[in-house]
């Protein structure tokens, strides 16, 4: 659990939509094997930060460096190929495909075969496909969906859908994985399960960036927490220090009880 070297470094990141500054001069870094929590009141710019990292829209200023290399300006699929995978706040499975195939799509960027070997049916293409299927099955076991392997994706429960998204993101062999409110909508026992899985992911040396409203869930996982408010970073500290940070308490409108309390009901939609 000792954090490794810096994987992604965000500095002076800003994004404006019309007159609204959604992200304002934010900087932080995520290290390998570290779980970094990203919190803030609704509309603080957490999701926008995610979308900037994933390349959905370009930043107005600032830089996002991966191993020291600038990634701003790259389209989403290129960023995925660089080792940044994500789950969505609202599950987005591929509904017409099986659970296993969903996970196999996640591994898209790890394949190197091209279309010609596929057409020729070469041994390498076939063994790559076999290995991929095996890897997908292992990931399905890892997240605990073994029983649901043959269930149509549309009949999975919400929590199972979240686990599927997690396995799908892991299939891409990410070096950074972004979770957008993973605990929202889960039952308490599912929360515990997901928490263990995320812990396990970090133990594999993968950097984890976690947006979460459920403080109980977040504080038990995160080694470090970045707090945003109105697009600006107001704190970057250890979880225990965040609880007592006056700026943070102020940001949550003096609602100090929110911090550290079990706020499963407080997880609203993020703007």
């Amino acid at each position, binding site marked *: 659990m000792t954090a490794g070297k810096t994987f992604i470094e965000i500095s002076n990141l800003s994004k404006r939509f019309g007159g609204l500054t959604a992200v304002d001069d934010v900087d932080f870094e995520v290290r390998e094997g570290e779980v970094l929590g990203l919190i803030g009141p609704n509309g603080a710019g957490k999701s926008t930060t995610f979308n900037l990292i*994933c390349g959905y829209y370009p930043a107005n200023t600032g830089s996002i460096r991966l191993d020291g290399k600038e990634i701003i300006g790259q*389209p*989403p*699929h290129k960023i*995925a*190929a660089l080792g940044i*995978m*994500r789950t*969505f706040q609202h599950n*987005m*499975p*591929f*509904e*017409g*495909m099986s659970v296993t*195939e969903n996970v*196999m*799509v*996640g591994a*898209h*960027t790890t*394949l190197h*075969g091209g*279309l010609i070997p*596929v*057409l020729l*049916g070469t041994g390498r*293409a076939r063994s790559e*496909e076999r290995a*991929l299927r095996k890897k997908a099955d292992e990931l399905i076991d890892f997240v605990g969906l073994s029983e649901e392997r043959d269930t149509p994706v549309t009949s999975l429960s919400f929590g199972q859908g979240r686990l599927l998204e997690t396995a*799908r993101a892991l299939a*891409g062999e990410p070096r950074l994985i972004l979770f957008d409110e993973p605990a929202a909508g889960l039952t308490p026992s599912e929360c515990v399960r997901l928490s263990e899985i995320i812990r396990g992911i970090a133990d594999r040396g993968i950097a984890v960036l976690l947006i979460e409203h459920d403080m109980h869930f977040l504080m038990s996982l995160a080694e470090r927490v970045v707090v945003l408010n109105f697009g600006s970073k107001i704190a970057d500290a250890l979880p225990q220090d965040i609880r007592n940070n006056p700026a943070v308490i102020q940001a949550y409108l003096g609602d100090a009880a929110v911090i550290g309390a079990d706020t499963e009901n407080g997880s609203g939609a993020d703007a």
Partner: protein
Amino acid sequence: MGAAIRWGGAALIMCVVPFLLPLYEMDVYRKMLFWVALAISYNFLFGIAGQMALSHFAFAGIGAYTVVILMTQAGVPLLLAIPLALGLAGILAFIVSFAATRLEGFYLALATLAFAQLFIVILDEGGALTGGTGGLTSYKLPLVFGFEIQGPWLAIAMALVLLLTLAFLLRIDRSWYGRACRAIRDNGEAAAAMGVDVKRTKIMAFTLTSVMAAGAGMVYAFFDNTVNPPVFGLENAFMLLFMVIIGGSGSHLGAIVGAVLLRLLQDMLEPFVGQFHVMGLGILMVVVILVQPKGLVGIWDDLVGRKRAGRRKAKP
């Protein structure tokens, strides 16, 4: 090994059948093969890659007209005309496919429908080059080793095109590429987040399947040694859509079932009930969409699945 025997067996049967059929039935048979070949490539485009394009028949027409024009008017030998026609279809498809990267759902349908319409306008007004509204007639395939390829031999050619198309599509469908196509169909944003290059994948699907349509169209051109605009018009483009949906969109078997069924419906029923068979087509379409969006193949799966589930329950 088993697969080779299965494919070889299928090819053998498909190639022997036309020699056993009387002339009219043989013609029905080979035209059915043409439709099946188009339906399976269209199914990949619409049912698997999720692109509601209505240009598929136009590309069959581009293949047919180009090969005939090259041979009869430019004197290009057949073996060169085939790759040239496929190449032209590929280039045009590549250009049109950019519409597929910018437009979604019915907007793509409208744009490709306009393209198909434009193709017909050009055929109608093409003068001596395209033969105008009457089309091109009375050309012939060259003799191959002094042998005239006609009748059932063309059915064999079409059967081979069909099998080649099917083998090709099955291979790519069961690979990372097929998965990427389905992922884009189901959720483009999530597919991109998984590293799928949405634009490139869409362009490839459109171009590949359109070239396949052109290949089938080329063989079709020599069935009756005539090509004319109505064959490649809007009605047939919609017919193809109906075939794939009624059979079961996204399923290769569904496309085959849909094409065979609707062709049989037309060829067998038309002499008896006239226009009524088209009504049946409309009713089938509405019923399938309302009852089982996965088409006839889906209804079959439901029946079999229920039986299996019943059996499983019966076990202690």
